[in-house]
């Protein structure tokens, strides 16, 4: 089928591309005046459009769902900051109130827990949630 000719099918497809038949089902289209070849071409074109529409819809739906999941997990993992603050305040209390070699060794060990990249690694895992097409990875 030569789609360059201004056939009825071409005109139909042009109208489809222009939008107002974009979301219509194939079965609702009137194809009585079209040849089998034209119908086949139209069907293929329509299927491609439907697939593109579906992909767009799935993207949006998945993105919305995954954003919600990410937000929910972020909320849970925010307790990590509280845990780190607690450790820091325990260290400060011991540091300020007590002295001694064993205490120094203890507070030094507590201080070194800051070097464990727990916040970064958890943040990285949580923010990895997403779609390929969103360009996150």
């Amino acid at each position, binding site marked *: 089928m030569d789609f360059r000719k201004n056939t009825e099918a071409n005109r139909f497809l042009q109208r489809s591309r222009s939008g107002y038949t974009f979301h219509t089902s194939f079965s609702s289209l009137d194809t009585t005046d079209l040849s089998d070849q034209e119908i086949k071409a139209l069907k293929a074109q329509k299927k491609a459009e*439907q697939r593109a529409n579906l*992909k767009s819809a*799935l993207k949006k739906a998945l993105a919305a769902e995954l954003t919600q999941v990410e937000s929910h997990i972020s909320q849970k993992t925010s307790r990590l900051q509280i845990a780190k603050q607690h450790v820091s305040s325990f260290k400060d209390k011991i540091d300020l109130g007590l002295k001694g070699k064993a205490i120094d060794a203890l507070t030094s060990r507590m201080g070194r827990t800051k070097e464990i990249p727990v916040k970064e690694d958890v943040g990285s*895992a949580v923010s990895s949630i997403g779609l390929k097409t969103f360009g996150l*990875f």
Partner: protein
Amino acid sequence: MAKKNSLKLSDEDYNLISRKSYSNGKYKIGEYVEITNGQKMYVADCRKTLNGLNALTFVTEKDFTISNNGKEKDKIKHAVIVYRGSEPISGGQLQSSIDVMSEAHEKMKDSQKKNGLIPEGVSDTIDAGINNVAGVAYFANEIIQDWLMTDINYSVYKKPFEDGNNNQMVQADKYAKDIHKDMPNAKIHVTGHSLGGVNASYALVKNKFVESGVTFENPNIYDNLPEDVKAEALKGKFKSRLTEYISLNDGLSMLNRDSEEVGNVKVMYDESLPNGIEESLSDGQKFLLNTLKKTFKFDENPSVDMNLFLEAIMGSHDLSRYSFHADGTTKTLDEYLSENPGLTDQMLKQLKSARTNPYSSVAILIKSHVLTNTAKSLKNTIDHELEPVITAVSQLDEDVESAVRDVKNTYVSIVGFGQYDLLTEHDVNEIIEELALEKVKGENLFYSQKKQTTALETLHNYKRELSAIADEVENMGKAYHDADADLARKMGIH
């Protein structure tokens, strides 16, 4: 029925006896004080000296009776020597004393200007002035003999008690020896508060016949002791016989607590924090504060807290602040902190303001509670803050898969109809695969499995480290609390 002639005094009894010994009226044989359970202790002997020693010897009612009202002392089986401490000085009494002295001083200066002689009657003027102000003579002696001559001279400057002067402590030792001589069959116990506690402690370490002693809020006397007694103190020889109750709020009882300790030191719980005395001082008290600061080199002794010291002088360290269990034992800070972990921070503040040596028993006690509480808090943090994070990250894959599955199912149910009438489930699956970040073992993943694994490994590593620290903190708290003999000797714990 004959009354049982035994003596079992509790901390509360010693506290009552010490407290009641402050009454001048008790300095007469035959006077008595009532202690717990309706018991009465009778004065069988007393001694007051010009150097400020105020000592009373109490005996049981039974002993007082069988000794013919204390006259036949060899019949006495139990005796409690009470050394009275420094009387607190009220602002009014102090101001009155100063006014009287100032007036006399001015008269002396005027007289000296006129003829270079001290006028007749000046001493009479002073005496008359003193007599017009109730208690001034008494308190003037307290200031000079107790607070200035003894408390500051010996406790602040750490002079040896045996410095050749017939000071209160030497007299206290002699008094105990005299009582032992007079009452050779009596088991002798000592007690005292403040400077009285110093005297009682000294009498105990100097005399093996003193069976036991309970003192309240006295400075540590270790630095004042002769070398041979210090050596015994270092070995903990007195800890089983001498119990010293101290308060973190009290300037006198915290004095020299940076040195080795002599008795078994226990910290009583005093809920009040130091108030910051300078703001509430009367003019007389301000005068005394300034005089003390100018006259004495308090800075040389790091255990001196001027505010706490002044509060002690002004009467903040009386014995009524103590509370007791039903069996008469003193409620200690240790117990309060065990029951109220939240108080640990407050006690730490007191500890800091008192400039206590970190190796003193007081510091060790607070440390043990701080550490024990910190270990508990840290474990709590692991359980309630860190564990939920580990769970959330562990379930990240399931949460994501569930969300994707929900979306997929929704679209699988609408393909083949309407606007997607040319599509099938296969198209949905294909699109989802296209949108997935990665495919692992046939599964489309919308998160980084590697990053999830890394995060979990790091979280478990963090948890292991915090748990190990919590265990270490807990063990340190226990170690401080249950210190072994060597640690106890060094740190003064028993």
